[in-house]
């Protein structure tokens, strides 16, 4: 099996899991659940699938999830109300998504454009129908939980994933990208101290780790949800900085959540640079 086949398989496994998760969550949405956490979870599943599908060469899945994401983004922003049309269109999209993932699983390159194109047009129409309409009463808001700073909260995120995460289908860049969708990334520090010399390194292992300072109108739990599918794949910590702690300030000793899953990162040796 070549490198590419190996990673396509990892993508397919992830896509199957995300499709199942979407199914559960969309059924819950159909049941008139209006939980912002639920909306965020659905959005991130679609966003993750879109990015991974584009990277691993599944353009039909990428196109469909991109269109779904545009609807969910409007819902998340409180611009679009969840009504029967929204839910039914998303459920129809899920049906086609399941078909596309099945095709990918079986290695079929069937062109579903006849079904896909009108569906994506409908999704875009649903997303754009209310442009300029202002927030709807029925739309949930991804608002910070009570007690969170309304103007945004500063979070410090430490992400030191295990070396073998590529084989788990985890893409650190997508996680960084997802964090960026939550708010403003004030600082990203990449720790290269675990990186071996070029001659010695294994190109299929991850040696980089990150510390991100994020300012977002999101709860601690919402930031943690970015790592929903990899919380056991390394040393991942999300910590709320003090409300008045600005860029480069001291880490707050307040509420935090450690996600020490697998092995801790190897002791940092001398930096290569």
């Amino acid at each position, binding site marked *: 099996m070549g490198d590419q086949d190996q990673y396509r398989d990892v993508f397919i496994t992830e896509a199957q899991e995300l499709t199942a998760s979407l199914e559960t969550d969309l059924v819950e949405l159909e049941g008139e659940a209006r939980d912002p956490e639920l909306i965020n979870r659905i959005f991130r599943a679609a966003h993750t699938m879109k990015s991974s599908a584009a990277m691993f060469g599944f353009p039909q899945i990428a196109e469909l999830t991109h269109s779904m994401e545009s609807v969910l983004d409007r819902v998340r922003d409180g611009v679009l109300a969840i009504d029967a049309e929204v839910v039914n269109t998303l459920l129809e999209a899920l049906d086609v998504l399941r078909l596309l993932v099945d095709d990918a699983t079986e290695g079929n390159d069937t062109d579903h454009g006849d079904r896909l194109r009108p569906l994506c047009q409908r999704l875009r129409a649903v997303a754009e129908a209310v442009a300029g309409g202002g927030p709807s009463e029925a739309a949930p808001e991804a608002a910070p939980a009570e007690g969170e700073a309304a103007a945004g909260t500063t979070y410090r995120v430490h992400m030191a994933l295990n070396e073998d995460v*590529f084989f788990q289908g985890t*893409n*650190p860049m997508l996680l960084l990208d997802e964090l960026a969708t939550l708010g403003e990334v004030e600082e990203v520090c990449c720790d290269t101290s675990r990186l071996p010399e070029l001659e010695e*390194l294994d*190109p299929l292992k991850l040696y*980089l780790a990150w510390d991100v300072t994020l300012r977002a109108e999101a709860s601690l739990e919402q930031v943690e949800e970015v790592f929903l599918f990899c919380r056991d794949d390394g040393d991942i910590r999300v910590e709320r900085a003090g409300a008045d702690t600005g860029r480069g300030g001291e880490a707050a000793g307040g509420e935090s959540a450690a996600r020490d899953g697998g092995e801790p990162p190897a002791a940092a040796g001398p930096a290569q*640079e």
Partner: protein
Amino acid sequence: MKRTKKGELNLPRSLTVDRAEGLHRDLKAVAEDGGPLVFQGDRVEQADAAGLQLLVATRALARATGRPFGIARPSGALRDALQLAGLADLLEEEG
């Protein structure tokens, strides 16, 4: 990976984990010729952590051996990826 007439090296379109083994081989090969490690990045369409860490390791090698390192004409995709990963300083190196 071949050197241009100016001695630069063309980075491939994909600096991603599914191409990382081939890229690693290419970088080790060009590192052996002792020339400058200056790349052209205008063709890069996608880059992930696996690809970027190879560039970081190549820069470390260049520094350790006193050779020039740089990435000329980075594509938007490469620039965005480096920015996202907190590695934009790779673009500040002068060949």
